[in-house]
């Protein structure tokens, strides 16, 4: 006789269902349910890409970059991309450009060599890379 069969299997389903419901309530209570993402809305809709906010973040990123603070620049580029994901889509008219793409690859290469070691900067650079090169579309 199987260990997992009959009433045991029913009980397991009940326990896992209860745990899933509790988990769902926990996520709903503590998670941010305000999404959808910024690039879903049509132009003019509430929640459309925040171009002004993104431009401000890009300006701050360029300022940090020119001052040699790569970690701060990456943080601002990430913030900008969260406000308008099209900034790192090479097909978009608002793409940050091939120069940015090349610098991002250089920063990631430097991080791999340990030249730029800040874990936050690593995470920001990796996010920008993943966003630029993949997805379902």
């Amino acid at each position, binding site marked *: 006789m*199987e260990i997992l069969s009959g009433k045991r299997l029913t009980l397991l389903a009940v326990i896992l*269902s209860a745990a899933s419901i509790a988990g769902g309530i926990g996520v709903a209570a503590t998670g941010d349910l305000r*999404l959808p993402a910024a*690039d879903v809305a049509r132009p003019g809709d509430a929640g459309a890409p925040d171009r002004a906010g993104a431009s401000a973040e890009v300006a701050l990123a360029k300022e940090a970059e020119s001052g040699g603070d790569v970690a701060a620049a990456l943080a601002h580029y990430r913030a900008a991309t969260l406000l308008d994901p099209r900034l790192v889509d090479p097909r978009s008219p608002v793409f940050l450009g091939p120069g940015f793409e090349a610098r991002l690859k250089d920063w990631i290469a430097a991080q791999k060599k340990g030249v730029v070691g800040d874990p936050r900067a690593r995470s920001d650079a*990796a996010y920008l890379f*993943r966003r630029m090169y993949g997805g*379902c579309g």
Partner: protein
Amino acid sequence: MNWRKALYPESAALLAAAGALLGALAVGLTVLGNPASTGLCASCFLVNAAGAVGLHARESQSYLRPEILGIVLGAFFAATATREFRARGGGSPVRHFLGGAFILLGCEVFIGCPIKALLRTAGGGAAGGVGLAGLIAGVLFATAYLRDGFSLPAPSMLPEGAGLVLPAAAFLLLALASGVAESFAASGFPAGARHAPFAASAAAGLLFGAVGQRTRFCVTGGVRTAALARDFREAAGPLAFLLAALLLNLFTGDFTPTLSLEPGAHTDLPWAFLALAMVGFGAVLVNGCPFRQLVRASSGDLDAVAAVAGMVLAAALSVRWGIGSSPAGVTAAGKIAVLLGCVFFLVLAAWKRKGE
């Protein structure tokens, strides 16, 4: 060459050869322009198609994928040519509709269907591998319920015309798209979602569908049959798919073992595991992953058509309600969708057993 054996493949060698062909085609489409690890992804393609017909507004994920229409038509032609096209349905359309919807949502939380999990693993993505492990765990768990008598009501035979709706719709859309493909993409981007050339995608889609129909290619089905019957022939296809994609990625230099730099992925491993575990569990209960549902639907199975309809609706909702994940991570709505999917399939599995 024995054509009968090729048309009705039963041996592990033939099924593996077919799987390797599909894997090579999928990598080829990526080389030609599809997004990374997205040479063949039924869930991604359905999201793109939903956007193309206006069900959501994310420009970068809107394109009427010729692959998806090709899969439908290829499977339909293969089923018709071998006299396996039979209109049937009415067994459990509501459960298929809801099951299809939750499976699609799970795929979007992981970012890809089970076939894309193979492609992501073959590209070196750690999160892809974790998702694949979750999928296998979900399938193995579901087999406990199958052994204990789980089954859905059998479908009834229907007039043949009833099964033609999906292939006819795919034919019309493909004919329209071949002339005005770009018009189906949103206008903000040059051509909507990243994609390979139309003709290559359509031709590959036809092959995906025809080969998928003849070999019953299904990642979850292969694991299920291996676990239940100790028959590993069905699993030979997906395994060969993975190996072919891996070898081609190594050859083209696209294999990069990584967690944080996997294109398009997120790094939330527990949710990658759980999302595809839910997909694997559910896919066994409703007889197939998104790709297999498309193939079954094209062979006249109206319960599978209900599953496809559920997947299309869920594809739109996943974008509109922020359920789908992004490289930034898994959203709260995505986590809730996965947990609700777990509840739905657990209740279905516990309820529909003989003797319980």
